[in-house]
């Protein structure tokens, strides 16, 4: 497993955290080779998480696009309602293996917080989740779910009170409590080994797409599309397809039209945020910018370092989709297929429909539907008013 992806990645952290990162790296490498660990991961993925998730042919959405076939990888059906479970389960098992009795996590949309709270309950680990107070307001149902699941939700009121600030708060907690606490980071960001570990546990998405597409339509898709906040569902989708000819498209949040949005790959530049060298939205002095997006899960100024490298090397392409277009795609999927998507993958859906439109009906586009939309009803209904 590489510490770097081209020039990107690394571990830019206060020295206090370095021993914990080494410990985590060791535990993960051992666990990957341990048949017992893999059996347990697989058993809980299936019996608790509901894997494998289906690959669904979106016939009506395809008709709307009048082009390539659109297929949905249904991560919205995973336990908890998003792909976040895949990583929370894996890291939760690692935390138990390392003997850490306490989990902390950051969350933006609340999905990672919910997943961590569920795993904390399952494995009997104390769980505390940092969440920006702006996000607590706009993703309220998830705050209530976390509390019901026994986690403590700690409001973060510094900065823009969104995901970036929640990660800062979680890192500060970890620096103070590193001996007893595992920081269950929720996206493919942060210092090494987090991007590698998160990508590893999320790669189940792309592996299933690989086998399911061959089974469903006899070959690999022509294009896969996933939304990119920190980039965990996207890297999980892309990784197992890197050495194929499948086109990879990552979709960032463009925010309101005319705003700077939250597209670190599409509008940012190389820099260090939260422990790794990657793309960052920043000013001329390297101060990290505030971001804007209708979806809390994509509202982040950084991105995982492997995506920075996939962009620079040209292996993947990244675009940004505006709030209003994501909302349109939300309603399309609701009316056409009877599925309420989360606002994060609604960005990817919009891009997938646009891509399908440009392609012949013989092609196949797979979109990772990273989460379900229940958490977003307030935002969606508010936007309709």
């Amino acid at each position, binding site marked *: 497993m590489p510490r770097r992806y081209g020039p990107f990645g*690394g*571990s*830019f*952290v*206060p*020295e*206090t955290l*370095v*021993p*914990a990162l080494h410990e985590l790296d060791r535990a993960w490498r051992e666990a990957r080779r341990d048949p017992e660990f893999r059996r347990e991961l697989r058993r809980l993925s299936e019996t608790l998480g509901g894997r494998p998730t289906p690959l669904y042919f979106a016939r009506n959405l395809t008709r709307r696009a009048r082009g390539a076939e659109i297929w949905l990888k249904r991560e919205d059906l995973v336990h908890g309602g998003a792909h976040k479970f895949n990583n929370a389960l894996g890291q939760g098992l690692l935390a138990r293996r390392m003997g850490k009795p306490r989990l902390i996590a950051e969350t933006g949309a609340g999905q990672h917080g919910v997943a961590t709270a569920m795993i904390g309950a399952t494995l009997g680990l104390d769980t505390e989740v940092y969440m920006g107070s702006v996000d607590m307001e706009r993703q309220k149902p998830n705050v209530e779910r976390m509390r019901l699941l026994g986690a403590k939700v700690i409001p973060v009121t*510094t*900065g823009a009170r969104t995901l*970036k600030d929640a990660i*800062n708060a979680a*890192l*500060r907690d970890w*620096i*103070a*409590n*590193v*001996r007893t606490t595992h920081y269950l980071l929720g996206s493919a960001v942060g210092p090494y080994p987090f991007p590698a570990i998160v990508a590893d546990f999320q790669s189940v998405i792309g592996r299933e797409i690989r086998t399911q597409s061959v089974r469903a339509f006899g070959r690999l898709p022509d294009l896969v599309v996933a939304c990119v906040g920190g980039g965990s569902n996207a890297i999980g989708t892309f990784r197992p397809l890197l050495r194929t000819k499948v086109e990879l498209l990552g979709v960032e949040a463009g925010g309101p039209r005319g705003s700077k949005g939250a597209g670190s790959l599409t509008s940012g530049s*190389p*820099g*260090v*945020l*939260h*422990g790794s*060298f990657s793309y*960052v939205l*920043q000013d*001329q*002095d*390297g*101060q*990290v910018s505030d971001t804007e997006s209708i979806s809390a899960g994509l509202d982040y100024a950084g991105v995982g370092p492997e995506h920075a490298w996939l962009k620079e090397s040209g292996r993947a392409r990244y675009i940004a989709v505006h709030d209003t277009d994501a909302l349109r795609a939300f309603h399309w999927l609701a009316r056409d297929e009877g599925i309420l998507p989360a606002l994060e993958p609604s960005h990817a859906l919009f891009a997938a429909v646009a891509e399908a439109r440009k392609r012949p009906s013989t092609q196949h586009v797979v979109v990772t539907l990273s989460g379900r939309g229940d958490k977003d009803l307030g935002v969606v209904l508010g936007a309709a008013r």
Partner: protein
Amino acid sequence: MRLADALADARSARRRLVVPYLLVDRRRLGRLRGTVEALRDAGATALELGFPFSDPIADGPVLAGAADQALAHGTDWRDLLAAARIASRSLPTAVMTYANPVLRHTLPAGLAALARSGVSGLIVPDLSLEESGPWRSASHRADLALVLLAAPGATPVRIAAIARASRGFLYLVSYYGTTGSAASTGTPDLAPLVRAAREAAPALPVLLGFGIRDRGSAERALRTGVDGVVIGTALEEAIQRDPRPAAVGRWLASVVGPRAG
């Protein structure tokens, strides 16, 4: 005088080393010269000049809040260079900032600009030993001492490696936590860490930082066998209470100066 020389000389003269931390804030530039002189007269050996960063993960609420304020006041890189020119006239000056602002100005050009402004040391709290290679060579070329940090929890082998790679001094973090969060130092047993650093780099001064806030904590810090202390959060609080240079100087003297009476 330059940071490394000043600290080495003071150590040979068996003086304890005192390095206060001042955050650069555009609104405080007018008082900077007087403040640095007052700190020098109160016993400071060198100065740490902090450049605010938007996401200071090693800092607790006081210093993170001060950084937010400074950025809200429009503080930018030019202010840092201006502050460095002023401060380095009175005290050897090291700049403390996070990795990203330096990288944004690029290692060679950013460090050269600092050096031209009189800076002779650099401290980057989110630069791990693992990432420090290019920084060490760039600092060497710019004639800046790159000060590395060590923290409790590191093995003696790791401390030794950090001490050998560090220049100017070794910045030993006194506890598990962010700046300003512990009431007193000495919770973890620091003596073995200090010993490991000494064995690896006998000529390198070792300073303890984080949590030094009054005479008692400063004296406890020195009993771990270090050569001196870095004082950040408590000084910032003192400045917020009374920003006048004379008051700031009196406060530092009350912590590290000779006992009155």
